[in-house]
């Protein structure tokens, strides 16, 4: 096996927590065993959860000194990181082989817990900031608001935000992502944080984007720009769908089915999987984000695909038999 689903690991983690509860009862154990017996994947997920538990074993004999160390060096690291300007995004990679700056859905959810404003699956949020600027936060997103006397700064930690800035000649309006910073020049624009890139769409006015290498580019209304920490592409035509979600609509203009399903999964709790065999099918049209079941039905009617609902929260999209 070289793949493991997010869902199995989540279930395994939940079981681990249940079983270590002092009040765990026999029926619970039996249900856990049934779950374990269900599939080799469950067993693999369980092994990893147990392995995490075992990692702590050598430390237990020195629990006081160890927790003191963990807590205290955590604090100093934060101050050190803040002094290392710009390094904040590079999560230290402890064990060899970890990818730097990864963005698994779980890490997103961790980011969301600690952010000022955040949204869960299927949730969008509208807010008016203290300067009168309006923002819309897309599903599974997290944003910090750092306004002070000199500047207005939004830190997008995960997901996507659409911004309608208010005028304030004294304070510049900045949006920061993992890859760089954007300065609004009186505008409406959206910023999306993906695994490795920032996606900027400008609908009114202009935005100046600068990545961590210091390369910058002014993006005009009607343009879109993709950039990473080390690279800045040439702007292309703006994508209207990056604004449509605010109205609860997913606009597909020659999107692939795989991309569309990924987008839909941000609005739907549970597991939504697209078979690679059909992931490249082109999709056109608009789909309701508030009713993802309806969106899936529309897709099924229009494309040579079959939608399997094993459970309501476990849906896979594959080729028609």
């Amino acid at each position, binding site marked *: *096996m*070289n*793949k*493991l*689903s*997010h869902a199995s*690991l989540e279930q*395994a*983690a*939940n079981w*681990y*927590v*249940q079983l*270590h*509860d*002092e009040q765990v009862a026999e029926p619970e154990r039996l249900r856990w065993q049934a779950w374990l017996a269900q599939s080799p994947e469950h067993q693999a*997920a369980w092994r*990893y*959860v147990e*392995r995490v538990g075992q*990692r*702590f074993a*050598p*430390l*237990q*004999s*020195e*629990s006081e*000194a*160890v*927790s*003191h*160390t*963990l*807590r205290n*060096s*955590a604090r*100093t*690291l934060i101050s*050190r*990181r803040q002094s290392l300007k710009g*390094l904040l995004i*590079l999560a*230290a*990679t*402890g*064990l060899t*082989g*970890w*990818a*730097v700056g990864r963005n*698994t859905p*779980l*890490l997103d959810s*961790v980011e969301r*817990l*600690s952010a000022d404003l955040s949204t869960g699956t299927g949730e969008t949020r509208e807010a008016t900031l203290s300067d009168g600027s309006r923002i819309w936060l897309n599903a599974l997103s997290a944003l910090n608001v750092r306004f002070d006397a000199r500047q207005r700064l939004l830190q997008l930690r995960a997901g996507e935000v659409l911004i309608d800035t208010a005028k304030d000649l004294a304070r510049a309006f900045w949006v920061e992502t993992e890859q760089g910073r954007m300065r609004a020049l009186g505008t409406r624009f959206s910023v999306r944080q993906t695994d490795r890139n920032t996606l900027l769409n400008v609908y009114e006015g202009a935005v100046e984007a600068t990545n961590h*290498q210091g390369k910058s580019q002014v993006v005009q209304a009607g343009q879109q720009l993709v950039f990473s920490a*080390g*690279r800045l592409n040439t702007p292309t035509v703006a994508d209207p769908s990056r604004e449509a979600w605010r109205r609860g609509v997913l606009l597909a203009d020659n999107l692939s089915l795989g991309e569309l399903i990924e987008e839909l999964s941000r609005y739907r709790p549970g597991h939504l999987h697209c078979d690679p065999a059909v992931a490249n099918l082109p999709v056109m049209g608009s789909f309701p984000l508030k009713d993802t079941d309806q969106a899936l039905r529309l897709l099924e009617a229009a494309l040579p695909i079959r939608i399997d609902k094993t459970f309501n929260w476990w849906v896979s999209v594959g080729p028609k038999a």
Partner: protein
Amino acid sequence: MTVADASLVHNLYLSHHRWLHELLRRRLSNAMDAADLAHDTFIRVLKRPQSFNGEVHERSHLATIARGLCIDHWRRRQLEQTWLESLASRPPASQPSLEQQAIIVETLHEVDAMLQRLPQRVSEAFILAQLHGMPYKVIAEQIGVSERMIKKYLAQAMMHCAILEAELDGLLIE
């Protein structure tokens, strides 16, 4: 890894090793650590080969990896130091053996790396449960949230760590 990948890294090494070593030496102010970390940086590239778009891109990629390794290096030193400080106040007889200490420091580093990206309250709950074996109810009182919330925190922390464990084995989490 293909032969092409190996020669790619080889060329990368020839063109940029001196530059990278110098960069690290300035940052770490220690030539030996710098040599180690420069070496580790190329090992990383070997493990995950990719193609580059010109010399600037190559250097920026190397610098990014090296920066991550630097932070890691500082972090490790800091952990060791804090650990030694927390032992210093104790009489020699009650100190763990040197061998035990080596195991603890290594494990500390692993556990710390796992907990780093968790919110403070989540990692605190996880430490209390995993390290001190505290009942959920007591943890809830200590942190000041409901027992149900603690269970949520713990499941979240556990899943986060389990994903990292699985990725260490090269598994793809989808």
